[in-house]
């Protein structure tokens, strides 16, 4: 079954079509050469005026051009077909992982609600459960934001609402929302905000970026590790770095991780949930701020650093 599927792989089909086309061509040329004299004789009897001494360059050029056109057409069809195939595959992966992502917080909320319904729970425990459920709803709404944002046909045309934002205060505020997640994963946070520039930013969009980067750092790091967030000026950019001690990347994955639906596939990540949207959206949002989202990693298992670079030109007077 696997061998049969390999046979119908787009590349195999493409090669097959090309081979068939070349073989047909060769057969035709062979036939033509063999019957050349007979055809000439036959043609001369009907249209003697066809046989002139010089080569007809226009017709030759036209023929070559048509040949090239056919070849290009086949190639274009192949490229699009391949793209379509990949998109279908990605979409089904996406549906599977998103439904799984949605179910986990949902299961947790249902469990706590039913606990409140069926068990005798003290006020203190109730408060704790409510906090947990709120943190699950936050996770759900983050995921839904990501899905909605990524479903827009052209992320570049995202409507941005810029307003003056004090970057260091804003980072501190976003981090505060993840307090519970840090506690649960027993991860520590080192916040280094020495400067506090005010930039013209879209607060809602940038909150998504920071939320995605912090959630990723927590998700892909072992319990008990630490995350360093620092804000600094590098040349023409204000740079926010998120340095984790997580599973890191291999070089070959670094370019791909900002692609829509892309997820690094290896033994360490196979059972970690994710929809492959967060980094794609984050990088689009940062681009819309005329900034850059960069990543570096010393290697697999050695942590990674995500840097959000926002141009100094966005700075506004307070």
């Amino acid at each position, binding site marked *: 079954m696997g061998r049969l599927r390999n046979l119908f792989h787009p590349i195999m089909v493409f090669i097959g079509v090309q081979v068939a086309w070349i073989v047909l061509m060769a057969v035709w040329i062979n036939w033509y050469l063999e019957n050349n004299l007979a055809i000439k004789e036959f043609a001369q009897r009907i249209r003697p005026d066809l046989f002139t001494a010089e080569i007809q360059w226009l017709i030759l050029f036209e023929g070559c051009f048509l040949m090239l056109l056919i070849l290009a057409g086949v190639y274009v069809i192949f490229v699009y077909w391949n793209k379509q195939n990949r998109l279908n595959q990605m979409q089904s992966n996406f549906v599977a992982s998103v439904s799984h992502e949605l179910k986990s917080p949902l299961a*947790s909320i249902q469990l*706590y609600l039913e606990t409140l319904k069926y068990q005798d729970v003290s006020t203190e425990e109730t408060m704790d459960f409510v906090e947990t459920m709120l943190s699950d709803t936050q996770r759900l709404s983050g995921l839904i934001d990501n899905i909605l944002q990524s479903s827009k046909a052209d992320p570049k045309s995202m409507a941005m609402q810029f307003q003056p934002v004090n970057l260091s205060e804003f980072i501190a505020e976003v981090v505060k929302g993840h307090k519970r997640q840090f506690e649960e994963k027993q991860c520590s946070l080192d916040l280094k905000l020495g400067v506090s520039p005010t930039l013209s930013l879209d607060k809602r969009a940038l909150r998504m970026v920071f939320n995605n980067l912090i959630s990723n750092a927590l998700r892909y790091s072992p319990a008990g590790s630490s995350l360093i967030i620092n804000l600094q000026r590098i040349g023409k950019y204000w740079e926010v770095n998120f340095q984790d001690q997580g599973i890191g990347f291999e070089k070959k994955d670094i370019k791909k991780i900002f692609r829509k639906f892309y997820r690094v596939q290896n033994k360490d990540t196979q059972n970690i949930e994710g929809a492959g949207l967060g980094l794609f959206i984050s990088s689009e949002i940062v681009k819309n701020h005329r900034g850059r989202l960069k990543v570096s990693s010393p290697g697999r298992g050695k942590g990674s650093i995500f840097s959000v670079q926002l141009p100094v030109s966005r700075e506004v007077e307070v």
Partner: protein
Amino acid sequence: MNNNGKKILVVEDEAHLAKGLQFNLEREGYNVTLAENGQVAMDLLGEEDFDLMILDIMLPKLSGLEVARKIRNTDMRFPILMLSAKSTDEDRELGLAAGADDYLTKPFHLPELLLRVKGILRRWEWYKEPVHDQEVFQFGEMWINFSSGKAKGCSDEFYLTAKEALLMKLLVSQQGKIVTREELLEKVWGYDPQTETRTVDNFVARLRKYFEKKPQSPKHIITHREKGYEFKSDPEK
């Protein structure tokens, strides 16, 4: 609440779910240990004995399916309840084939989970009661040790899963008689409207692979059309 502090190992990487499960199971009188990934679970199993394992599938490091398969290849004998967001029929079959005794999908209802846990432990108690004088049941070249779960089939020695052993024990204890699918369902799986009689057939097919030279024409585990199954230790009789 007379669960006598039965020990349950909950293997779940979602901290919120794990904490909620622990709270509820402890309220029911169970003794709960948490493991956040498959590797930690395997390490804990090496140190302690547990009466039941609640196992998530999507786990970092070592997946739930791998954990179940590993356990199946050792002499550790306890039932596994798989808890997963994967809800297709294939996922379910994959989980059961890996060695799970029951499969519940997320999100789940709390009362249902507690009833299933209770049911699995009750059936396990019944299984532990001896029906034979000797622990090892021998038929022909083959044998089953019901206390360790170890068995010798047509070819090799291997370990039966808790559910396979339970099913085999029920058939053996009534050998020569027809046991209906409904009885098997009720005693081995507990009353559960979701479980179909097809489940029994799937498990019987697996048992035949172990104990029948030609699973297509069985000599020991005989199907009686529209009635049930019968176990014959000596096919000649």
